[in-house]
């Protein structure tokens, strides 16, 4: 990029793509080299409090599997064929030394596969700090907040010991503020795509967000800001596509080719749950008061409806897809779920029946992060887009 010129959209996407494509986590390694004495902490999907990692002076690093570019040599020896693909590629990354720069790894309570992986990590990498992050599932907000606060304080202490920097309240507050900005930026990107999906192809948005999982939050905000500016400067051309919400891909990520196939088949993705952790908290965390308590309360009062949290409202699962479709101004839903993914697949009948009762067209397919053939997805999505247009015209 030439200095002094605003970077073009292509340049920004390429930069993000380079970070995303790099299975050696070069961006993380560079950051560590440029910051002697500092350390990095990884986390698996879906939600961990990145603010705390950051406040302890560690670089938060998202571990989202190896996608379709990683050859699995060692990972398959750890998992039976009927377990999803994500953990085997994560193990592959680790066993091949690609995650050796992580001083800590957090395993959130997404499902039993990630839960059990936390124990495997303890055995495989005894020098790393490993913590299973059990988020509160009780609908009792007070009890949930108290529990979560104690978990967060424990994390502050432990990660502070890993980094050698025990954060002050001011440090914590600064990190909370920074992540409020990060989430606000992600929301702006999603809002812009929702309004003008022809300007922000999901393929581009996705690589931007993936890059954001490997660079400091300040850099992500800058990159996203530049991207939005570049989009303004180089708008796209609207097409007669159908508008869809993609659901079920919150953990093992679809290969980029799958996202591209959906859009090329005539569907604008106007909402999705890819990389959900980066916008898990829907509202800003208040900056007054105790920052750890504020984070805990923000979690329990958050309205995020996702498969990894207990839904205490009996109508919640029925309603959520209608609400999401309405909010996104979508025409239909694509349930895109990783094969063997308990959370996504167990939820699907409830979500789908709610959607179908509201006469929202739906299709469903399963993928693996290393799926290499997209023809069948393209055909399915294409037929779906056409049928939506037909119904819409009827």
């Amino acid at each position: 990029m030439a200095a002094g010129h605003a970077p073009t959209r292509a340049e920004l996407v390429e930069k993000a793509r380079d970070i995303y494509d790099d299975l050696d986590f070069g961006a993380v390694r560079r950051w560590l080299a440029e910051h002697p004495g500092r350390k990095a902490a990884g986390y698996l999907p879906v939600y961990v409090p990145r603010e705390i990692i950051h406040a302890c002076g560690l670089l938060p690093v998202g571990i989202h599997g190896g996608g379709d570019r990683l050859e699995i040599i060692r990972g398959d020896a750890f998992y039976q064929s009927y377990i999803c693909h994500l953990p085997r590629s994560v193990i592959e990354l680790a066993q091949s030394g690609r995650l050796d720069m992580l001083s800590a790894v957090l395993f959130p309570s997404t499902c039993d596969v990630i839960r059990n992986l936390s124990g495997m990590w303890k055995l495989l990498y005894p020098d790393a700090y490993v913590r299973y992050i059990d988020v509160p599932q009780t609908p009792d907000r007070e009890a949930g907040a108290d529990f979560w606060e104690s978990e967060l304080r424990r994390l502050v202490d432990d990660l502070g010991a890993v980094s050698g920097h025990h954060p002050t309240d001011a440090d914590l507050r600064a990190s909370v503020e920074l992540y409020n900005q990060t989430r606000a930026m992600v929301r702006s990107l999603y809002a812009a795509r929702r309004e003008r999906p022809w300007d922000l192809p999901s393929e581009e948005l996705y690589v931007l967000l993936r890059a954001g999982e490997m660079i400091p939050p300040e850099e992500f905000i800058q990159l996203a800001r530049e991207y939005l500016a570049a989009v303004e400067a180089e708008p796209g051309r609207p097409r007669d596509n159908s508008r869809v919400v993609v659901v079920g891909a919150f953990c093992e990520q679809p290969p980029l080719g799958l996202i591209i196939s959906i859009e090329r088949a005539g569907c604008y993705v106007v909402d999705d749950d890819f990389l959900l952790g980066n916008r898990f908290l829907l509202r800003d965390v208040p900056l007054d008061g105790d920052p750890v308590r504020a984070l805990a309360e923000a979690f329990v009062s958050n309205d995020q409806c996702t498969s990894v949290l207990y839904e205490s409202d009996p109508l919640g699962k029925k309603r959520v897809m209608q609400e999401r479709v309405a909010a996104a101004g979508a025409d239909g839903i694509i349930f895109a779920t990783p094969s063997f993914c308990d959370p996504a697949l167990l939820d699907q009948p409830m979500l789908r029946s709610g959607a179908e009762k509201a006469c929202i067209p739906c299709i469903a397919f399963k993928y693996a992060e290393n799926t290499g053939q997209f023809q069948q997805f393209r055909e399915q999505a294409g037929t779906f887009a056409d049928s939506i247009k037909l119904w819409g015209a009827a």
Partner: protein
Amino acid sequence: MAEALKDRSMLLQKEMLARHFERLARAPETGEPVVYTFVPGNLTELIRSFDALPVLPEINALQSGMRKLSGDYIAEAERAGHSEDVCTYVKCDIGMMRSGNLGPGGLKLPKPDLLLLSYTGCYTFMKWFELLREEYDCPTVMFHVPYQGDGVLEPEHRSYMLRQLREQVIPALEKATGRKYDEDKLRHHLALSAKAEDDLVAVLQAGKNRPSPIDGYFGTVYYVGPIFSAFRGTEEGVEYYRTLRAEVEERAALGLGPITPDGPLEGERYRLVVEGPPNWTSFRDFWKMFSDEKAVVVASTYTKVGGTYDFGFRHDPSDPLGTLADYCSGCYTNLNLPSRIDMICRYIEEYQADGFLINSVKSCNSFSAGQLMILREVEKRTGIPGAFIESDLVDPRYFSAANIKNRLESYFQMIDARRLGKTA
């Protein structure tokens, strides 16, 4: 004598179950409240203290598997949109409900007055009751039992559980049953539990004898049935375990092997430790593959999903809610992988096993994710090669008898070869 005693415990269990399911079938008329809950982390004493009847959907599912009904039930659930990839217990349960909800004895199961979602050691539980709630349209109470990620019950986790018990679970039970919480009554049930648990542990540890008078897996799934389900904390439960213990101790004193479907096993040749749940659709065939080879399972982890009593835990009436929290936290699938590995290694050593086997079931990520690592770690620590087989709980499509038999035969040959090597 031993045969007569054996018959008595079996008979007792049969009668207890029949009475329980009859009571459940009559519940809509008698007005007895019904609470559905799960085996790991079940709060049976608390449920009983409200004079409510527990229903354990996993037990119904495994019974459907043994009665060869699960294949149809699963097909029914899959037709209704449930994925082929998820736990077959859930689909079996949903299929059973949609097919008239006839329980193990052929009697209709009542609807729940409350779904007590004891969220212990398995993610699927959360979805299972979210799904059932849609079908039954009844109240649900979540009881979140934190996972022992670091291998211990952390004090904050215990306080969190206590608070949920006081502020969520008990009020929900009061509302569903129309009865007040009675702590003395709870203590009474807990004291009965502890008695039965002492006797159960004596039964389980009888596996240390040579020959073992019990099969610690196939036989023991029957033995743990009452305590894992509706009968912990009841007089019937106490009576059952007292009787069973006497039978087992007598068999041990006489130097007898375990009872198998083909009669008493004589001439124990292999002593095994097993990790993972059994297959239920071909349970007898599966067992026979072991007993034909004179292989006895001396200890297993599956028989600890409803409590790890053999490591010392007993329900404690002096701390009624605290003991329930401790119980839930310690159930096998709530333990992290290093703790599971330690447990298997201890069994191998203390029960003098010649080998260990993992039955990995497709349904269950809670058990299965990480089992290949467990295999390697246990092999490394004990120096004993393990066997790994794959099947499912109640989906008959995933039980390949020929493959499993072959695998077992070669495993037993390997044990023989190792023995020869050692004596050579």
